[in-house]
């Protein structure tokens, strides 16, 4: 088990979509895992088997099938909780990371923010960790302040310190790994600064939990969110991992079945955690699939996953460094960054790059990556982004390099 290396060819063999040719007939070179990951067989099988052998609504059925469904669903929760070191009762299933942020913004923010209070986010946040705060600020009279991005794509923590010292900051919401810059933020420092100033903290771990060892305790956050589909799991499920003692004191967010203790005409009382925050039929098959995804990642070993990523990112930075006039955003040092690598070419618009490399089967993302404030800070409308995962190889990275060269050739430059 020591120094286990990740065998990405073995992983590829588990991921059926990678065996299919791309639309152009070339092998599929999938470099867009920051948008969503592909799924290995054990994940697809777990969901299929759930529907074929154990499907029933959970938590309320007496019959054996319902007990089996409940057990598989709650096993998914136990798996996820173990994976990020949260307590099962502090591990709430949402539909995606975005809903998980909204849950905190509404359940906590709507009732605990008042006019003049400040929520601090950063300029490199995904819209999912900006807009919910803007909405709740609009409803409460609170303000949203942004920590700027400086240098090679890191946060200006002096500004955060200033804000915490001079403003009535009640929440600091920060991304762990930027989905554009790749920057790994010092979240433990940031959440400590927040706590010392009496503010709550939320870490958006959507781009870190899939790629490196992450624990709720190590982030130091009151709440951490991530999303199933980026970590080999299915769509339709996200996670809020949080301190149960905090959650326990909050009013619920969504109301409905499963989350109540009693419903009376005059008013209702709430179920125990985590059910209080899981209104309605939960994403049952999705939790089963996410549990399988987590076990698959554990089988690979998260240290090995991270080492593989550093290796591929090193190569990716080298390949892009070799492309004439390319601007690469974010930290230079692969050890200081996660999987997403964004870049620009002066002569080719990101849309055209993505379109032209797709000819060679290479899938990369072009656009604002749901980070428009960051795009403005970088002074570009859009970037091209490549991101690797456990099923990618050095060949995939090289294929991008070759495809970029032929894209340029196609568009009339040698």
């Amino acid at each position, binding site marked *: 088990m020591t120094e286990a290396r990740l065998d990405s060819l073995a992983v590829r063999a588990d991921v059926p979509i990678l065996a299919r040719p791309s639309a152009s007939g070339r092998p599929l070179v999938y470099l867009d895992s920051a948008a969503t990951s592909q799924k290995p067989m054990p994940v697809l099988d777990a969901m299929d088997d759930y529907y074929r052998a154990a499907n029933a609504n959970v*938590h*309320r*059925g*007496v019959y*054996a099938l*319902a*007990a089996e469904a*409940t*057990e598989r669903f709650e096993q998914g929760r136990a798996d996820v909780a173990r994976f990020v070191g949260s307590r099962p009762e502090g591990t709430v299933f949402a539909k995606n990371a975005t809903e998980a942020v909204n849950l905190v913004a509404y359940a906590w923010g709507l009732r605990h923010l008042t006019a003049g209070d400040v929520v601090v986010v950063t300029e490199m946040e995904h819209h999912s960790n900006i807009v919910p705060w803007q909405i709740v600020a609009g409803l409460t009279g609170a303000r949203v302040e942004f920590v700027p991005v400086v240098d090679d794509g890191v946060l200006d923590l002096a500004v955060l310190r200033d804000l915490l010292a001079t403003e009535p900051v009640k929440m600091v919401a920060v991304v762990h790994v930027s989905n554009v810059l790749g920057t790994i933020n010092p979240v433990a420092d940031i959440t400590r600064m927040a706590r010392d100033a009496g503010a709550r903290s939320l870490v958006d771990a959507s781009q870190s939990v899939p790629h490196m060892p992450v624990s709720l305790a190590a982030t130091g956050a009151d709440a951490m969110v991530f999303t199933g589909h980026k970590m080999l799991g299915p769509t339709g499920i996200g996670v809020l991992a949080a301190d149960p003692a905090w959650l326990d004191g909050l009013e619920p967010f969504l109301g409905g079945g499963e989350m*109540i*203790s*009693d419903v009376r005409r005059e008013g209702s009382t709430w*179920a125990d955690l985590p059910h209080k925050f899981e209104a309605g039929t939960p994403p049952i098959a999705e939790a089963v699939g996410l549990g399988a995804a987590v076990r698959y990642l554990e089988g690979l070993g998260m240290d090995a996953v991270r080492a593989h990523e550093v290796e591929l990112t090193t190569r990716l930075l080298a390949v892009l460094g070799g492309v004439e006039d390319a601007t690469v955003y974010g930290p230079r040092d692969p050890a200081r960054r996660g999987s997403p690598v964004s870049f620009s070419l002066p002569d080719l618009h990101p849309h055209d790059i993505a379109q032209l490399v797709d000819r060679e089967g290479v899938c990369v993302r072009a656009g604002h990556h749901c980070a428009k404030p960051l795009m403005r800070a970088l002074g570009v409308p859009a970037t091209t982004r490549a991101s690797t995962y456990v099923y990618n190889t050095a060949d995939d990275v090289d294929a991008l390099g070759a495809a970029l060269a032929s894209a340029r050739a196609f568009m009339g430059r040698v």
Partner: protein
Amino acid sequence: MGGIEDLYQEMILSHYRAPRNRGTLTNPTVSVTQNNPMCGDEIQVDVLLDDDGRIVELAHSGQGCSISQSAASMMSEKVMGTTRDEAQHLIEVFRRMMHGDDPPADVDLGDSEALAGVARFPARVKCALLPWMALKDALQSVGTTKETPHGQ
């Protein structure tokens, strides 16, 4: 999964058909109502403690299934005459049994041991626990106002 006979043992059915200590007390030290949010069942447990904190009377009422009703009946017999501490210990042993742990060799849960098989029916565990959790609440609520005499 256990067979149905593990769940519906004769002992359980006999308590269900002829529950002991069913009803309410006129002068309880404490009365607690507990509901099962999954099914809507409610149980009321009335407890009369003497000055030493010993359970001298206990009655249970409300509606419920064979498991919760028989659990209440069996519990009422077992805890009658125990001190608060003893009863709290029994509650904990019973709770653990519902999560699959055998009771320790030196603890006798009496007829309630017939409920051990419920652990294999997760949807019914809450039923069996219902009266015990009501008793726990009841003892905790008196505990906050009055210390139980200990070892005297």
